[in-house]
């Protein structure tokens, strides 16, 4: 046990600060955890072995729940990606775990032949193949690390609640930063284009209104949408995004930012819900319940409508700019 790195169950201020940065998409790859075995508290040859990804948030979420528990953590190389996404790509997978068991000489570190995998690693891992190849039996632990103490207490049993992935308000709020970051560059380019055209056609105020309306649609799709998700009408994300876009159209109208002439007003009424619909449709990827078949189905209907609304809206907006309708 001497040469095994020890790791604390307490997260430091620095850990929390780094995690916040990672949530905003900053330095995701810098804060990778080195693959290998880590000791938590004072593990012996009989202590349980938890497998984790080398993504900072995954590793921290696990170790902070192991207070007072003697255990080993085997960090595998998922290229700095979290458990679930890595499992989807196969990097959190059977072969990597089998190799890591060999490389770390896990068989010499523990006397039992059991490893605990996070349940969300299952899309990439085949428990029976892993056992065949490594000799280790797989126990799937709970989805949330916070259920680990309860899971251990009852002899490694998982209740249906522990197995179910949620997508509650707090889960969704944590994802908002990445939604904002992901769409930011497109939003900036679009605003810049509207603004330049407005200046070139001699009316800066139309450019200011464009910036406000695009930002409102962005806010609707990336912030309001995720927060209000279950309350918005429709089942598809694009439909929900359309409705949340109508809310900001209403806001823009009431503040008199929507436009001056009928063409400009109508153009934003078309474009704003389309933009927020596109952005919220992207949230399918962050959600924990959208099936690829479902996403495909909604996109087949929504994308042509979104593009048509933006195309026609843009046409009206340019007509207003060029001919002052």
């Amino acid at each position, binding site marked *: 046990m001497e040469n095994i790195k020890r790791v604390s169950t307490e997260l430091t201020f620095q850990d929390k600060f780094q995690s916040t940065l990672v949530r905003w998409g900053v330095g995701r790859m810098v804060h990778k955890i080195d693959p290998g075995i880590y000791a938590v508290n004072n593990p012996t040859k009989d202590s349980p072995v938890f497998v984790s990804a080398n993504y900072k948030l995954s590793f921290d979420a696990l170790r902070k729940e192991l207070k007072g528990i003697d255990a080993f953590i085997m960090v595998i190389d998922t290229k700095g990606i979290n458990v679930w996404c890595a499992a989807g790509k196969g990097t959190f997978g059977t072969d990597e775990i089998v190799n890591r068991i060999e490389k770390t000489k896990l068989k010499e570190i523990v006397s039992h032949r059991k490893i605990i995998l996070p349940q969300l690693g299952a899309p990439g891992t085949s*428990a029976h193949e892993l056992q065949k190849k490594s000799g280790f039996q797989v126990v799937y632990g709970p989805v949330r690390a916070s259920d680990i103490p309860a899971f251990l207490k009852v002899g490694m049993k998982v209740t249906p609640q522990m197995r179910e992935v949620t997508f509650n308000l707090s889960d969704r709020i944590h994802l908002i930063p990445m939604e904002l970051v992901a769409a930011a560059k497109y939003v900036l380019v679009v605003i810049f284009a509207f603004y330049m055209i407005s200046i070139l056609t001699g009316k800066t105020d139309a450019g200011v209104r464009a910036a406000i309306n695009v930002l409102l649609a962005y806010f609707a799709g990336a912030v309001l949408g995720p927060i209000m998700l279950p309350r918005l009408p429709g089942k598809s994300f694009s439909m929900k995004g359309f409705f949340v876009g109508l809310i900001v159209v209403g806001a823009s109208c009431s503040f008199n930012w929507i436009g001056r002439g009928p063409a400009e007003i109508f153009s934003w009424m078309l474009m704003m819900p389309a933009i927020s619909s596109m952005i919220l449709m*992207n949230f399918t990827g962050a959600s*924990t319940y959208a*099936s*690829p078949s479902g996403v495909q189905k909604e996109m087949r209907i929504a994308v042509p409508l979104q593009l048509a609304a933006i195309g026609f809206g843009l046409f009206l907006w340019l007509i207003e700019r060029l001919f002052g309708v």
Partner: protein
Amino acid sequence: MREQEYLKNVVTLKLDQKKCTGCRRCVEVCPHNVFDIKNKKAKIVDKNACMECGACEKNCPAKAIEVKAGVGCAAAMVTGFLRGTAPTCDCSGDSGSCCS
């Protein structure tokens, strides 16, 4: 029962009960409690809750489950469409909302 519900009757999940040995793995790995064991055989009890993650298929030693697994991510599908590849969320970069 569920707070969130996605589109109905679209998922590709299939279970061949004849092959099922009742080992419970599918029940253990499913993040949406789609399966249950009835009379020592797995049964799909909530098909519309399936998100096609593929965990059940991958962990079924009897090969009784089939599902077209993939990432349910619009951005991934656009990327895949533009590159002419399978949907990919390109998590290897510094961005990608599906990997938050």
